[in-house]
């Protein structure tokens, strides 16, 4: 707020004294110090003048008619609660302890006892003005900081969180200790229909703690969208935060990827309290404990780092929390702790609203205690994600003429290929590269998501079954996928021979195009006729944990063909705009 006096360079002083002589003397001294002076001869008039002129300094007598100095001081101090400290000095001849104490109690910033020399008076004015200037500076800084925090908050909720995926199904609590929360929650959909979720807690809170939030959100979203695996995303986020943040700023974070396709959850906890997997009855099925220092501390992830894989049912719920919930304190100084958290979460899971029940429980526990740390939680349903992907692909709409083979006879508009062998196969994921080529040449479009799924499934089949020689039979039981994943990790780490060759060619057709995908591997191949025969014999009601990838690819492609005993697969994908 700009006051009357701030608009001018000359400072204003108000002298309130019933003695005209005193007013005159003080006015002269103040004018010599560069003040413009107004005078009032009783307390009530003094208050009125204060309201009218908003002076920079008030000198107040104590004994006056109508309203005395103490009362006038209280009124003035009650009015000046906004931004500026208007220093008020009592001028009196009462040299008693009582007068001094009452002056300060009434809101006075100092007292000057008569008689005093002009130089002592001027010195007092200078010192009090210095304090007042300092106060003004602090206020200005505080306001600037508040504005920054508000802007950051706007950015956070408007830009970062508004872009989260499936905000209607994934429950989020974000209750900041200060305006700006050091906690960040991100959700994004991967091209294969997996849902990636992250809950992060930057060191401390407030603006300082959140400088990493925007690059973090960008990396998480862009890499998820391009189809990088969760582990690749975590590796990159760690690397980026290490480069970006000073040594004492880091991010404790939990990552979860829900794959309905594999009936599994992939998790990684770097410095957060345990994440919880609950059954629909609210029983704890799994606890995702921290296995790595927070991100941004080390230049690279520790060498033994890996994702945890857990089998999930579609009715399960995965919950990630920051330490703000379990460390929330009540008046007696007790913490909320995990036991209360588990009880509230169980109630929430059964009743269907974890966020509501959790907030209720924390608030009931803490009562009116001020919140010390950011409180945040993410509640992710483990089922219902796959339908979303297949459902969004309207396969029936392709005109028949596009499916004719004529388009392949002409040479492709472009051709791209990559061959990976040996150790490179275990560290390089070629799918994001392939997708990035397509996006760059043909432009970004939603239907590339289906192509991504086809590429991923076919590449993984070639790598897993061809090069690594893994058998799908491993996935036969409900926990089989976890076993399968472990064995896969083991074989990948020891891989030093074999290859996978990936070829893409694009043939434009009117209003669309046709992408031919050809993948060749160094494996033994497999008996395709047996595969189809087994599939026909399998009861459709039976819970099937393998082969779903190929079913999906068949739905998305217009042709799928295995050659050379199954060591080469060729798929054709047609799109229309």
């Amino acid at each position: 707020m700009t006051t009357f006096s701030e608009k001018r360079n000359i400072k204003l002083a108000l002298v309130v004294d019933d003695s005209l002589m005193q007013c005159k003397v003080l006015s002269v001294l103040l004018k010599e110090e560069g003040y413009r002076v107004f005078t009032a001869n009783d307390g009530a008039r003094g208050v009125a003048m204060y309201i009218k002129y908003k002076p920079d300094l008030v000198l107040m007598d104590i004994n006056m008619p109508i309203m005395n100095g103490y009362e006038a001081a209280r009124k003035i101090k009650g009015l000046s609660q906004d931004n500026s400290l208007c220093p008020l000095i009592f001028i009196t001849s009462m040299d008693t302890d009582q007068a001094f104490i009452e002056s300060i109690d009434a809101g006075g910033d100092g007292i000057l006892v008569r008689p005093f020399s002009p130089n002592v008076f001027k010195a007092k004015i200078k010192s009090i003005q210095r304090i007042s200037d300092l106060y003004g500076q602090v206020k200005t800084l505080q306001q600037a900081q508040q504005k920054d925090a508000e802007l950051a908050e706007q950015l956070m909720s408007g830009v970062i969180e508004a872009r989260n995926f499936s905000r209607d199904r994934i429950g989020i609590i974000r209750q900041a200790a200060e305006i700006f929360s050091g906690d960040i929650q991100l959700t994004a959909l991967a091209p294969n229909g997996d849902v990636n979720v992250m809950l992060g807690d930057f060191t401390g809170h407030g603006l300082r703690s959140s400088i990493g939030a925007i690059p973090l959100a960008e990396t998480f979203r862009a890499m998820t969208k391009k189809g990088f695996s969760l582990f690749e995303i975590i590796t990159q986020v760690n690397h980026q935060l290490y480069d970006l943040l000073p040594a004492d700023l880091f991010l404790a974070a939990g990552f979860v990827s829900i794959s309905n396709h594999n009936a599994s959850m992939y998790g990684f906890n770097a410095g957060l309290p345990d994440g919880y997997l609950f059954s629909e009855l609210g029983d704890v099925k799994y606890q995702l404990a921290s296995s790595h220092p927070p991100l941004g501390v080390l230049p690279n992830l520790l060498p033994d780092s890996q994702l945890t894989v857990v089998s999930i049912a579609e009715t399960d719920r995965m919950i990630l929390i920051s330490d703000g919930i379990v460390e929330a304190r009540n008046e007696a100084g007790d913490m909320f702790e995990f036991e209360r958290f588990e009880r509230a979460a169980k109630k929430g899971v059964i009743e269907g609203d974890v966020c509501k029940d959790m907030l209720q429980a924390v608030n009931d526990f803490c009562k009116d205690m001020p919140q010390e740390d950011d409180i945040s939680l993410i509640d992710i349903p483990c089922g219902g994600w796959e339908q979303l992907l297949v459902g969004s692909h309207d396969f029936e709409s392709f005109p028949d003429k596009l499916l004719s083979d004529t388009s392949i006879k002409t040479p492709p508009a472009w051709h791209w290929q990559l061959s990976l062998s040996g150790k490179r196969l275990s560290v390089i994921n070629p799918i994001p590269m392939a997708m990035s080529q397509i996006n760059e040449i043909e432009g970004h479009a939603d239907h590339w998501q289906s192509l991504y799924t086809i590429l991923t499934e076919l590449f993984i089949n070639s790598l897993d079954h061809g090069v690594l020689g893994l058998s799908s039979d491993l996935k036969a039981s409900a926990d089989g996928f976890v076993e399968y994943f472990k064995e896969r990790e083991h074989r990948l780490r020891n891989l030093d021979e074999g290859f996978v060759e990936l070829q893409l060619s694009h043939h434009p057709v009117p209003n669309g195009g046709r992408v031919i995908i050809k993948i060749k591997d160094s494996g033994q191949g497999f008996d395709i006729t047996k595969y189809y025969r087994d599939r026909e014999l399998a009861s459709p009601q039976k819970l099937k944990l393998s082969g779903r990838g190929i079913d999906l690819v068949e739905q998305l492609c217009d042709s799928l063909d295995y050659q050379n005993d199954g060591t080469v697969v060729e798929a054709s994908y047609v799109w229309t705009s």
Partner: protein
Amino acid sequence: MSVKKQVSENSKKIEIFIDGRFDFSLHQHFRDAYANCTEKGQVFTLNLGATSYMDSSALGMILLLKDHAESHSGSVVITKPSESVNKILEIAQFHRLLTIEQ
């Protein structure tokens, strides 16, 4: 003051004690405790025996101490964390970054 420092006679060993809550309010005192210890090969012992609580900014401050020690070819050892403080160190997996002695 809740940050105390004890230096061994040959000034090779510096022990820092934190009394009570270890949080951002100790930032300056904590830094002052080690900032001018720039001899090569010093061992900084952070004694958390009397530390009742530690927050994430304290973890950050420990990392700064670690950086300082390592840039002067020294090392950091954390000693005697209470159960609750140890829990925080454990969640942050700090035993994988530096030595923690019970």
